[in-house]
């Protein structure tokens, strides 16, 4: 087979800009071979090189006494005591999921699980943050059904409980849905595996499934905008095999326990290329690959195809040579491929042979080290228009419409398709503030949540970035967990547009400020840019996945109150309706500034809630977010199966009081006798608090207006099936 001639136009087809191609010519002093061009395109695309985002990612706080390993490895590693660590990351699979929802989402889950167990951790929880276009869009239902089915198909078979996440609908995602998959695993803190190779002449071993032509060029595809031809990109989407992944997990953990592994890297985006370069680069070594040894499932694959294949469920490993027989036996036990495909070499060189010929001979370090890095021009996002007057409406009627709306109705339709209980340690199931998973065999537990409010990020990127982290902090605190750290999955439009770059910069600054103030360092993450179709960008969507620790299950704060209890509102209220769920869901309005987050108040409020639980003063807690006080009260009532009455407040317009989205707030339930002490504790902590109502009866009362709890349940619980045209 003849290879195409390498020139600037072929480079452009590979997503390389003219100056980037020139950089390659200068670096090599010659024209690259076809395979080499493919390797450069894989390493230098946005997805793998972070060339537009690196400058700003470096500004995020990534350190803390709890952090064992921050960004730069397959996943972040955080100390949870007793010699144990939680390993987690969130990663996007947006473009593939839009093209082929089932496989796109499934392989997104597969990729993030691999990132976690590559580090020696057994996955114990998964989440996913999904953003779809408006339900009226002809494509949306098919995407929702396919993505949810794909996530379930992969996670359920693999055997990881999918315990949380988000689903949102907004027309800005009509042409570009977001699928952000999170996974967390458990490892011994002294048994973490990294990707840096060490030792010269060490065997490089290929593990797992065979290599096919699927996904060739996937990472490059994911680094471009979509046009009308999105459908034609379907062949670049990979096909997932969760059964193979499950065997790969067990085999890798067995292999790691045997002491055979020097370093290990999963083959994700840009497959063999990215994983081999990563191991060599981190270990200051060269890598020599012999592609004739690569297990292939298709005939006559070229070096180019093998180097760029994104076939799933594969790993690359540097092995202790004396352990080869033992390692091979483990993989044979699990019926997986095991092949020595190369060696580490002392010089800075990436040498790829195939069929007796040298197909690539490149300076290895330059592939990652010399990747372009851009300081993209950006402009500050203009302030959102001031909030126009909000029409008057009966609060109970507004509540009924909100809790049945696409963005606030129950997500049970989604999470009942995910096995959220496998491994039998799920203590708090989906549908609460944060899910809680017990650390197997221990008293302690981990809490997981995923948050962002893209409406806020669009209106005010800095405050929106802060709010995403603050809401994650709040969800963990409302569950009784001490927040540990976060992973960020930053989804934005085309960074070459200064306005989009401005959104990115603003959000990063906000995330950084909040992570600093709330002591939740960023330990891993992923950037997904070019989320645009025909020039229309998504809402800026920096998904924050957060993990918290509970020393014992007794620290869990339920969301469901008892009957006849008092409701206490924690935090300061101003009735902020700008960018609120109320004005968006009811009137499709997106005016006004995003609510501002007072990070000091946020931290104090979270610490107060946990202290009140420790004192045994509260029975339930729920964070206030979309839909404010009224929606929080209604959700607590629905969880408990008891009515609530929330009083009106003097000095507030009813809708502003009940639906305002001021930040840093919680609704607590407590026995009447405890209210006085709660208020006193709040004063002592410098946190606003007031008694706002009580539980009981079968109505949800907002001041003078009311709606039956049964009616709210009906619209809330059937809402999603209605959206999907099933009810």
């Amino acid at each position, binding site marked *: 087979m003849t290879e195409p001639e390498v020139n600037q136009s072929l480079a452009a087809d590979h997503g390389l800009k003219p100056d980037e191609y020139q950089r390659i010519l200068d670096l090599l002093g010659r024209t690259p071979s076809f395979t080499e061009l493919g390797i450069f395109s894989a390493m230098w695309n946005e997805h793998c090189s972070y060339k537009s985002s690196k400058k700003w990612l470096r500004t995020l706080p990534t350190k803390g006494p709890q952090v064992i390993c921050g960004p730069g490895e397959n996943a972040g590693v955080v100390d949870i005591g007793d010699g144990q660590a939680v390993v987690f990351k969130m990663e996007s699979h947006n473009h593939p999921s839009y093209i082929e929802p089932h496989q796109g989402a499934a392989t997104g889950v597969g990729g993030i699980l691999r990132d976690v167990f590559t580090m020696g951790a057994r996955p114990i929880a998964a989440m996913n943050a999904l953003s779809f276009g408006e339900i009226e869009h002809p494509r949306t239902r098919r995407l929702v059904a396919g993505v949810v*089915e794909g996530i*379930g*198909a992969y996670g*359920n*078979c*693999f*055997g990881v409980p999918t315990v949380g996440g988000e689903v949102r609908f907004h027309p800005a995602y009509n042409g570009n849905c977001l699928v952000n998959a999170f996974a967390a695993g458990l490892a011994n803190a002294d048994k973490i595996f990294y990707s840096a190779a060490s030792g010269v002449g060490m065997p490089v071993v290929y593990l797992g499934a065979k290599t096919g032509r699927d996904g060739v060029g996937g990472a490059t595809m994911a680094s471009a905008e979509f046009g009308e031809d999105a459908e034609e990109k379907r062949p670049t989407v990979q096909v997932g*095999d*969760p*059964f*193979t992944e*499950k*065997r790969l997990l*067990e085999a890798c953990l067995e292999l790691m326990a045997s002491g055979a592994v020097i370093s290990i890297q999963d083959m994700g985006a840009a497959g063999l290329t990215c994983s081999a370069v990563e191991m060599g680069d981190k270990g200051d070594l060269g890598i020599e690959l012999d592609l004739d040894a690569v297990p292939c499932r298709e005939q006559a694959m070229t070096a180019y195809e093998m180097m760029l294949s994104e076939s799933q469920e594969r790993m690359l490993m540097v092995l202790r040579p004396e352990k080869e027989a033992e390692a091979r036996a483990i993989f044979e*036990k*699990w*019926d997986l491929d095991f092949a020595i495909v190369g060696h580490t070499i002392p010089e800075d060189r990436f040498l790829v042979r195939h069929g007796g010929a040298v197909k690539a001979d490149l300076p290895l370090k330059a592939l990652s080290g010399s990747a372009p890095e851009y300081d993209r021009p950006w402009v500050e996002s203009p302030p959102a228009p001031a909030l126009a007057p909000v029409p008057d409406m009966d609060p109970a009627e507004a509540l009924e419409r909100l809790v049945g709306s696409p963005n606030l109705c129950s997500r*049970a339709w989604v*999470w*009942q*398709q*995910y*096995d*959220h*209980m*496998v*491994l*039998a*340690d*799920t*203590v708090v*199931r989906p549908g609460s503030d944060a899910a809680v998973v*017990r650390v*197997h065999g221990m008293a302690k537990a981990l809490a997981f949540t995923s948050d962002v409010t893209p409406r806020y990020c669009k209106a005010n990127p800095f405050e929106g970035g802060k709010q995403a982290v603050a809401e994650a902090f709040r969800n963990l605190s409302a569950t009784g967990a001490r927040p540990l750290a976060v992973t960020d999955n930053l989804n934005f439009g085309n960074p070459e547009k200064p306005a989009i770059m401005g959104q990115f910069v603003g959000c990063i600054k906000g995330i950084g400020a909040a992570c600093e103030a709330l002591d939740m360092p960023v330990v891993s993450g992923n950037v997904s840019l070019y989320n645009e179709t025909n020039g229309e960008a998504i809402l800026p969507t920096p998904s924050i996945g957060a993990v918290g620790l509970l020393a014992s*299950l007794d620290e869990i704060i339920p969301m469901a109150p008892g009957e006849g209890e008092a409701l206490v509102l924690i935090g300061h209220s101003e009735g902020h309706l700008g960018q609120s769920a109320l004005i968006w869901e009811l009137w499709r309005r997106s005016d006004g500034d995003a609510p501002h987050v007072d990070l000091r108040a946020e931290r104090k409020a979270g610490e107060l809630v946990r202290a009140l639980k420790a004192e045994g003063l509260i029975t339930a807690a729920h964070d206030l977010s979309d839909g404010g006080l009224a929606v929080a009260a209604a959700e607590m009532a629905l969880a408990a199966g008891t009515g609530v009455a929330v009083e009106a407040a003097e000095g507030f317009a009813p809708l502003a009081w009940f639906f305002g989205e001021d930040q840093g707030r919680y609704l607590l339930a407590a026995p009447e006798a405890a209210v006085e002490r709660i208020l006193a504790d709040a004063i002592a902590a410098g946190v606003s608090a007031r008694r706002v109502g009580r539980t009981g009866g079968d109505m949800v009362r907002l001041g003078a207006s009311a709606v039956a709890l049964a009616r709210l349940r009906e619209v809330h619980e059937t809402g999603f099936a209605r959206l999907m045209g099933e009810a």
Partner: protein
Amino acid sequence: MKSAVIVFPGSNCDRDMAVALGAAAGRPAQMVWHKDAALPPGLDVVALPGGFSFGDYLRCGAIAARSPIMRAVVDFAHRGGIVLGVCNGFQILIEAGLLPGALMRNQTLKFVCRDVMLSVETLDSPFTSAYGNQRLIRVPVAHHDGAYVADAALVARLEAEDRIAFRYADAAGRATLEANPNGAVGNIAGVLSENRRVLGMMPHPERLADPRLGGTDGAPLFRSLVEAVSVAA
């Protein structure tokens, strides 16, 4: 009680099952690899756990039923051994010919994971004797292919022989359409073999056998096993 859990490459509820068996018996269950040809000696109970034994891309449990270990499990059952199959384990028992009927894709065509109510239809088995007066229990399901299918003659026979162990039920214990998560004929959730010593069921009793997980209605099933074994000994 000496118990063993069979581990197929795609089993993922094997540990959950071992924990529940171990907690009830006071001694750990043994894990047995599917490629083994024999069971450990002296076993009282063999459990086939939930999961996706061989990926289950085609007919669930069909490949697992032909594993080397399954010949030993079938022999064990034929000798009167107690065999419990949950979810994928139920599918495997049917494929291995130890239980009649078939399990088809859920009527909704969707995977379903949630708590369901079950009526305990018989106390006359080593799996259900400890339920006593507790005839309505809450246990989770988590499956894509759980619709039990049998022709009218088989259903009539199972009913006549009191071999239906559990049915999906509403809060009042009635086997209604709304209470059925998968379209199973007659709301059948679990069936017994002719000698009553093999049980296959779609719901997961091992997932609600620990109060910290929000329920213990699965625990009497494991207690029943311990009692049955100690009575026999």
